[in-house]
């Protein structure tokens, strides 16, 4: 039962339904709640007792998810030029779009005047990363990609979760198409 307040057309009062004694003493609802969990308890217990698995969760290191999509993307890599240098031109588009602000780039002048700009420092703090993939989308030169590895991204310290340029360049593609050509601004 709601009614308008005369001077405030946007506001309305709502009269909550009065709770009767059965609700107020809580016992009925408590037993209903406990009944649901108890059903689960005995069902799962019976499964355990008959040497089956009584939980829907997985035993992580021994089991991994069977329903992990092949499209899943986790760890970042920097794509290399054929000379092993990163393809990245340190434009900071990824750092700009990153909603978690986990990418740190410092640029420097490249020896090759055609490339001009290259990253001196390229760090991704994977403990901040939310794996949204915006950096991959934002990259104008396809320099950053994500591999379908997620489950192994663990570290004992926070600073070990910061992946630097060397670590990000550790991916060595076997398909020659993936070793990409230099960025040609005139193309």
């Amino acid at each position: 039962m709601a009614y308008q307040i005369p001077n405030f057309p946007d506001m309305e009062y709502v009269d909550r339904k009065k709770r009767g004694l059965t609700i107020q003493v809580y016992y009925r609802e408590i037993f209903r709640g406990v009944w649901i969990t108890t059903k689960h308890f005995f069902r799962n217990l019976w499964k355990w007792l008959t040497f089956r698995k009584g939980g829907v969760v997985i035993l992580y290191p021994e089991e991994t998810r069977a329903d992990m999509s092949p499209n899943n993307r986790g760890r970042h890599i920097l794509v290399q030029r054929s000379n092993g240098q990163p393809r990245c031109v340190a434009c900071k588009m990824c750092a700009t779009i990153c909603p978690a602000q986990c990418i740190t780039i410092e640029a420097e002048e490249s020896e090759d005047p055609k490339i001009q700009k290259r990253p001196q420092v390229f760090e991704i703090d994977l403990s901040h990363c939310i794996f949204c993939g915006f950096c991959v989308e934002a990259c104008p030169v396809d320099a950053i990609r994500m591999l379908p590895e997620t489950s192994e991204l663990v570290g004992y310290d926070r600073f070990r979760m910061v992946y630097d340029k060397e670590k990000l360049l550790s991916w060595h593609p076997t398909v020659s198409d993936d070793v990409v050509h230099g960025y040609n601004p005139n193309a």
Partner: protein
Amino acid sequence: MKEVTLTVDGKKITVPAGTLLIDACEQNGIYIPRFCYHKHLFPSGNCRMCLVTIEKNPKPQPSCMTPVADGMVVHTNTPEVAEIRKAVLEFILINHPLDCPICDKAGECMLQDQYMEFSGDKSRFNETKVAKEKLYHFGEKIVYDAERCILCSRCVRITREVSKTNKLGILERGDRSYVALAHGDTLDDDPYAYCVTDNCPVGALTPTYFRFKERVWYLHKTPSVCAGCSRGCNIWIETKDNVIYRVRPRENDAVNKSWMCDFGREYYIYPPKNRAAGVKINHRAVDYGKFVSEVASLLKEHTKETAFVLSAYATNEELTLAKQLTEHLGIKGIFHKKDRVWQESTGEIREDDILIKEDKTPNMAGVKNAFPDAKDINDMVISDFKYAVVWGPGAPLDKVSGLELIVISAMVDQVWDKAKYNLAGRISAEKHGSFTNFEGITQDFRRAIKGENNYDELTFFVDLLKELGVKPIGRTVQEIQNAK
């Protein structure tokens, strides 16, 4: 002055005769896109972006070259004009490389902005772009990228009209043209060289101090006033994470138009090594509150024997409080000094008829306004005094050497080392306030970066006055300005 009335987009506007159409429109709220036209430069009319249609004119006219005429009927937002702008942008972008990601101008690029606003079309150009020199050093200060250059000639006109060094020119012709210096020349000895990078509409000219350092959209702009000389150029200090990345002139027709000198910029960009830090008594760090109470009691006891040496780096608000302090205590020996003088060895310009003034301090006029009776420190008779409050750097050592010194300064110098009481002050980028330039124009500025391990002189004077039991005129810049 004679005034003319004309119609722009159905709106009747009245401007002085002789005004350029592009200015007349901008003054009345109609922005006409442009690349080569600059308010403070002679129009050149080569980019064609500002073409508008004028009735009874067979062809569209460049509004930057057309003076207004009575009864002119101008259209700036017809489909025809939109088509012209699209076509001009398409032509400019034929050879302009699409390397916005690595271009330092991206984010504040006129070409980028106007392409997004007026065209947005896909390029129809399938051929190879003309490749030119990508890295061409105009000396140590500036790097030129010929590919990005759209040959608006703004930089050429700046060297010809503003700095009058005539260093830049456009060589070759057609699609091979590029901006260049005369053989064997550099822009390093041009004191206004960085102005060409500010006013380059694209990323062709970039200053080496800012090249690849930071993207412009991360920078936070603070309006400030240059403290390099008594001209008081209006500037933007652009910072990120408490670091000054770039300094650019702020437009002010009365003071500096759109320009500033390179020394002013370097004054902010390369932080001085001899910055003072901390609060000390007898060269030992002490608590700030203890310092204030000790200085207050010392001044109270030795009022007659104390010389008060003012700083020409002080803001007007600090000087107001200093005046209140000296009047309250009755200090008679008040002196002003030149905190910084021209030093030939650094290659600094002594004075020119463009912007740079001989007085290298920002607020000498303010000091003289606040303390009309103050004498020059060189006229000081040492034997009259036992104590001296020395505010700011650059006091002559022989004048203060025998005294017990209280030094409030942002810079370490010999006087600082000799002092018994030291308080590290702030430079103008680290505080709010106002300066009065040599023409008597008072200009406010805002704090751009936080001072670390140093103390605002304004707060120090407020605390000192409170310690002496006086209600200060105001505790903030705003309060003091309102109280005046």
